[in-house]
């Protein structure tokens, strides 16, 4: 237990002392601050662009609302932030193996299971904290810009996305524990994202598997969402299984 807590402490210190603090937290905060403002001024921006190019044609855009701000947030989470998660987590374990740091710490009283679990917990905590701060900022800026910002649906959309992202953290950890190449793990991560997108076209997969979480945050914001209980439960169970498999594989690997 000593080894696990000490290593977990190292993981958290590493987040704050290296580039890791700037990537996912930086991206979420940036989109949280700019999304509502962009949503508010999109009609004016589009209007000014069209004015110079299509003489005689008038495009009427509806007045923006807090829903547009929330949609900006969920779209950014589902694409750019998730891609950043895939890239960062692709080297979660393999980077330590490649740098030779794992070769020292794993000869001390730190089991390989603790090593993998501490990595998952620290990465998940970073993701949870980043999305929580991002959601709060989105809510605050949206309220400031639109005078209206219901918190419940924003929290629900962010929470559902978080479950989906944690599934990817677990999957990338499994890949990183199984192979030495970070770029190969990242490539497979993007492949899994594409497969889930294709899977979402099949109704049973959409209802009962993680495929149902891909578009869920946006649907929650627009009020078009059906129950996401099964996809959430399936994703959490699958994430747990993937971490367990990562532990089992890493215990057998040569370092």
């Amino acid at each position, binding site marked *: 237990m*000593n*080894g696990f807590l*000490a*290593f977990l*402490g*190292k993981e958290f210190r*590493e987040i704050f*002392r*290296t580039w890791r603090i700037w990537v996912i937290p930086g991206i979420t905060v940036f989109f949280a601050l700019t999304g509502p403002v962009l949503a508010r001024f999109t009609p004016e921006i589009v209007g000014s662009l069209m004015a110079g190019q299509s003489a005689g044609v008038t495009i009427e855009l509806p007045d923006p609302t807090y829903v547009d701000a929330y949609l900006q947030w969920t779209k950014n989470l589902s694409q750019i932030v998730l891609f950043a998660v895939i890239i960062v987590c692709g080297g979660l374990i393999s980077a330590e193996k490649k*740098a*030779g*740091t*794992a*070769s*020292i*710490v*794993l*000869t*001390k*009283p*730190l*089991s390989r299971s603790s090593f993998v679990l501490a990595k998952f917990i620290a990465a998940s905590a970073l993701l949870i904290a980043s999305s929580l701060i991002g959601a709060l900022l989105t809510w605050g800026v949206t309220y400031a810009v639109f005078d209206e910002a219901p918190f419940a649906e924003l929290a629900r959309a962010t929470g559902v996305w978080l479950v989906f992202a944690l599934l990817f953290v677990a999957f990338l950890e499994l890949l990183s524990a199984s192979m030495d190449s970070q770029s190969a793990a990242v490539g497979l991560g993007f492949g899994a994202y594409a497969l889930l997108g294709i899977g979402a076209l099949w109704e049973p997969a959409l209802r009962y598997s993680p495929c149902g979480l891909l578009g869920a945050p946006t649907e929650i914001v627009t009020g078009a969402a059906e129950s996401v209980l099964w996809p959430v439960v399936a994703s959490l169970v699958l994430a747990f299984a993937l971490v367990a498999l990562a532990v089992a594989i890493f215990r*057998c690997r*040569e*370092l």
Partner: protein
Amino acid sequence: MTAAIETRGLVKTYGEKRALDGLDLDVPEGSVFGFLGPNGAGKTTTLRILSGLSHPTSGEARIYGRDVVSATNETRTDIGYLPDVPGFYDWMTAVEYMHFTGSLFGIDRKTLVARTETLLGFAGLAGVHTRIGGYSRGMKQRLGVAQALVSAPKLLMLDEPTSALDPIGRKQLLDMIASLRGRTTVFFSTHVLSDIERVCDRVAILNAGRVVKSGPIEELRARHGATRLVLEVAGPAAALAERVGSEPWATDVAPGEEGMLSIATSDVGRARQVLPALIAELGLGLVRFETAEVSLEEVFVDLVGGEGL
């Protein structure tokens, strides 16, 4: 007494390559044990298996009687390990790294602070507050030795510990290893023969994945191969060298400058009887006749055929 390290029939294959080919090794507790072999002999593979980083294909490896494959934290608590190319968290300072590795063992803060100060002083890194990312290879090697000692381990395993050190750093490290004799079992690999001769009391010579010779250094010198005789004669030594070379007890004859002759013999008694007669027969005067100590290098070269030197 339980052996600190014991391996039986240890085999490790990488595809077609057999890195270890039935390695049998016994490292007694309290010894300073040199693990000598040419490049590619299997030294690092052995150390990686013993430290739990790699798994054997077959055979047994035990540390203090406990199987290394199913090693628990209890086994790892007994070990201090330095890999051949140590990797560190570049964003940490040496003090932070020592505190981190010490905390993995659950060492209390007060002890850890005191031990860190002592070990970093020994490693020549006291007062260095820069991040490890800016260290030279030698500094990293010295930090690697310090971190291996942070838990005051019963067994210290070092893979080529002197390879990146300058002469002063090398001397300091070897002195430190010598100072651990009797308190900590030290098992270190190297292909530098002088390091072994300087500090080790026992040695195992490894070649092509097998231990070809193992034992106390003095016993190895005495038991293995030839004794070397050094002769100096008044007159040309070439004719004498030719005659000696045809004798069955002479295993190697090397003429030197100005009447010098170095003869390796498997029967020193017979050589002592015959050589004065040969010198007289050739009309040469005997200036010097002495027995030279066989160096570990000669034993090593003889056993592994000069590979890796």
